[in-house]
């Protein structure tokens, strides 16, 4: 049977507020257990939540970025269930009246097609703490540092039709929230997590099939793989005449499989009701409009500007604007070198290669944009050539110093003295008389190919320091005899 995949995603983005959603405790990753907590996060008797207005501003920014309706009155509700790392016995979330209503965003697939994915809603909620099962023999430790950390839960319509679309959508959300500066996007630390709702239906059928929900997938790659394995699992069941059980599943990246966590029958009745400790959040038009006016440039706008302003190709503009930090890095280079093409080539080429090798994000690059610009300027002013620059970059990457320090220390300054180059060329010609003979006997077309050999010999003799732009005319002159 030919199956159509129907996917809806729920993305939890941790908002980059300084303090928690309902308390003044600091938000941070990796602190000693229970050191970033207040009475509120510990669920102490009599403690009361106070809403962090910064989280509100961030949620409204996101709403604008996906052209969504903003909930002018939004209401916090309690989602009641018992869990040891849920200190109050309920999670404060939003149910009927979320801060962000219906919106949409466009994603571009690898083949260039554009798909519009609907956003159902986005709402604010607090995170729970963590249960620690190691280091406590026969017991469980509770760390409430994460308790009440602000999350924006972004719910998509079931508009996604493939794993590739799902990844493109999550990447777009990732790009938007990092552009807005409302989430650090660090998926490895759990700053962005994704729940995947997936069902299959025969192509052409309009009703949805029974869906499963895969919880807490935390990388682009795992999202893609989890979707592929779940599609396969559901298709196998359906093709054997079986029925899909509506349930929550977990993706195990080590085994590349999804596993049942709990079925619908075991699901909690969360007994949502408006939280009486928090007033409804009432927004004014002025407030909402002021946030719209101050919205930073978003990824699609930035790509369009790069094409216009820097004459970049669609592809280059797309790659360089995919993350705000990448775009900022690129623009820092352009501002210093005044050469967009050179800057784009180096960011997308050597720098990306090094980042990939070390599995680093550009924000964590050991070579800052400012020091990288110094290197490019040395290419521009002919101090070094491009080939040497790659070696210098590697040394900079390894922490050996600035571009100038390395060039100086290693004596890499390009030879631009024509007399010196002439001497080097002459000695190459003298040492390779047979090849010179052959060259002189050849047709001009053939000569063009053969000149590469002599160039290589000259560069070798100069230890890569000869300026290739100067070598070529000298070579040609002397070879012609």
């Amino acid at each position, binding site marked *: 049977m030919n199956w159509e995949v129907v996917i809806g995603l729920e993305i939890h983005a941790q908002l980059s507020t300084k303090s928690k959603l309902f308390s003044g405790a600091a938000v941070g990753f990796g602190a000693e257990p229970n050191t970033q907590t207040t009475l509120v996060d510990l669920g102490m008797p*009599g403690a*009361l939540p106070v809403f962090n207005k910064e989280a509100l501003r961030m949620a409204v920014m996101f709403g604008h970025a996906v052209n969504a309706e903003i909930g002018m009155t939004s209401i916090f509700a309690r989602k*009641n269930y018992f869990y040891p790392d849920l200190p109050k016995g309920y999670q404060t979330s939003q149910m009927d009246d979320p801060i962000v209503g219906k919106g949409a965003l466009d994603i571009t697939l690898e083949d260039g097609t554009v798909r519009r994915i609907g956003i159902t809603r986005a709402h604010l909620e607090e995170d729970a703490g963590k249960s620690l099962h190691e280091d406590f023999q026969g017991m469980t430790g509770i760390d409430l540092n994460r308790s009440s950390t602000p999350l924006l839960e972004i719910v998509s319509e079931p508009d996604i039709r493939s794993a590739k679309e799902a990844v493109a959508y999550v990447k777009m959300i990732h790009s938007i929230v990092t552009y807005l500066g409302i989430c650090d996007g660090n998926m490895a630390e759990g700053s962005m997590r994704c729940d995947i709702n997936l069902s299959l239906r025969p192509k052409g059928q309009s009703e949805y099939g029974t869906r499963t929900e895969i919880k807490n997938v935390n990388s682009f790659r795992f999202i893609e793989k989890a979707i592929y394995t779940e599609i396969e699992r559901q298709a196998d069941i359906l093709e054997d005449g079986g029925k899909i059980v509506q349930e929550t599943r977990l993706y195990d990246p080590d085994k590349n499989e999804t596993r049942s966590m709990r079925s619908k029958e075991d699901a909690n*009745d969360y007994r949502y*009701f408006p939280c009486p400790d928090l007033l409804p959040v009432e927004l004014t038009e002025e407030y909402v409009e002021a946030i719209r006016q101050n919205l930073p440039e978003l990824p699609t706008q930035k790509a369009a500007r790069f094409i216009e302003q820097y004459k970049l190709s669609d592809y280059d503009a797309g790659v360089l604007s995919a993350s705000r930090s990448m775009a900022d890095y690129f623009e820092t280079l352009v501002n210093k070198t005044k050469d967009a093409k050179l800057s784009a080539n180096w960011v997308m080429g050597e720098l990306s290669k090094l980042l990939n090798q070390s599995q680093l994000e550009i924000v964590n690059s050991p070579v800052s944009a400012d020091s990288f610009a110094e290197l490019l300027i040395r290419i521009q002013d002919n101090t070094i050539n491009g080939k040497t620059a790659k070696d210098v970059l590697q040394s900079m990457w390894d922490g050996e110093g600035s571009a100038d320090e390395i060039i100086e220390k290693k004596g890499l300054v390009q030879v631009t003295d024509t007399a010196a180059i002439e001497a080097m060329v002459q000695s190459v010609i003298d040492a390779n008389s047979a090849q010179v003979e052959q060259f002189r006997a050849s047709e001009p077309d053939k000569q063009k190919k053969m000149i590469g050999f002599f160039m290589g010999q000259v560069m070798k003799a100069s230890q890569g320091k000869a300026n290739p732009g100067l070598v070529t005319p000298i070579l040609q002159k002397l070879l012609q005899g």
Partner: protein
Amino acid sequence: MYQQNIAALAKQLRSKDISSVELTQSFLSRIKDVDPSLNSFISVTEDTALNTAAEADKLIASGNAGPLTGIPIAHKDLFCTNGILTTCGSKMLHNFIPPYESTVTSRLKQAGTVLLGKTNMDEFAMGSSNENSYYGAVKNPWDTTKVPGGSSGGSAAAVAAGLVVAATGTDTGGSIRQPASFCGITGLKPTYGRVSRFGMVAFASSLDQAGPMARSAEDCAYIMNAIAGFDTQDSTSSEQATDDYVDTLSQPLQGLKIGLPKEYFDSTLNDDIKNTLMTAIKEFEKLGATIKEISLPNLKLSIPSYYVIAPSEASSNLSRFDGVRYGHRCENPKDLLDMYMRSRAEGFGQEVQKRIMVGTYALSEGYYDAYYLKAQRIRRLIKQDFVNALAEVDVIMGPVAPTTAFDIGSKTNDPVAMYLEDIYTLSVNLAGIPAMSVPAGFDNGMPVGLQIMGNYFAEAKLLNIAHQYQQVTDWHLQNPNLAKGA
């Protein structure tokens, strides 16, 4: 000394006729003598009391004392007090020592009061008789075979017996006013949001409000001056400016329009109480007030509405008592579920468990619309009744409770009769308006309270009205004959 008001005591403290340490010692010894027969205290904080009193004496000597400096008070045992056991009258919190101070107790501390101890109460403030306490029932000082009312019964009994000058209480459905009425003292439930709920262990968050319980309206006004006002730590507290509740006490009542809701004076009200209240209301006419009959048509709906909303909120508020971080945890739990179930079954008393179950049911999928949402709609109707009535009159007067204090044990097996105790008080909490109970006479030797209800943030007006009444009557000055030490 035990019957003196705050102003008189403050004057004697300042004139050095007595020191705060002496005053404190004297109240502490009276507690020792009298309280065994009343059980109004869960904890008596003798050492900290004497230290605070010594500090107060220094402050008085330095000339920087306020009107409450050195005045002995007590707190209902659901206000968190830093380093002092806070039980909520429950086994669940029998070992809970908060590392923080509630806003109410902190403001009273700042004002210089001396805390003598924490008063008994119905478990988690659920009850109208103070029989639902893990620490045992409280007895009414006017007749120890009778209940003091609830849930702030310990505070009411302690004030009535002269064990403290004033006490704090909380009122979710009448828990300040009804025990004040039963014990013959003055109590004020402020407007919802007037006093911060921070550090007050929550029963029903949208209804809970803290307030003063004292012998007179004037004493309540002094306490209100200390505790009222916005608190950044409570999002539901109001930013509206407070009044000086003492300064406004002496306004004349000429021209005051009093509304008497016919639903409050119908056949359900005991005739003797009705007559007592009508006599009191005549006093107001003598003071220049006019009387008008009004209607609060949805009064009867307040009981079903309240008994859905309050337990619903309670079922969620009490979820945090799970044995994980503080409070009671069962012995040798088999697993997580066993720990939850046994800790809660052992830690909570019967009434609390009943309300958690009712609330859980009312919020369940499939029942939410029929119960919780409907109750909220009724709540809006009740609020509208008050808004309409208070557009016609300045204040509304009526009974606090349908009876005077009843016998201990007489209603424990009849929950509906117990819930009906609150018929005249619940609607005030549902609407969020302020209301007082003021001593207005006796019926068969037991005190009868008059309820005065006002518009939002009209606490100054209510205290003014009660104070003027107390200038021409002496019901609030009557004292019970205690078996010992009276």
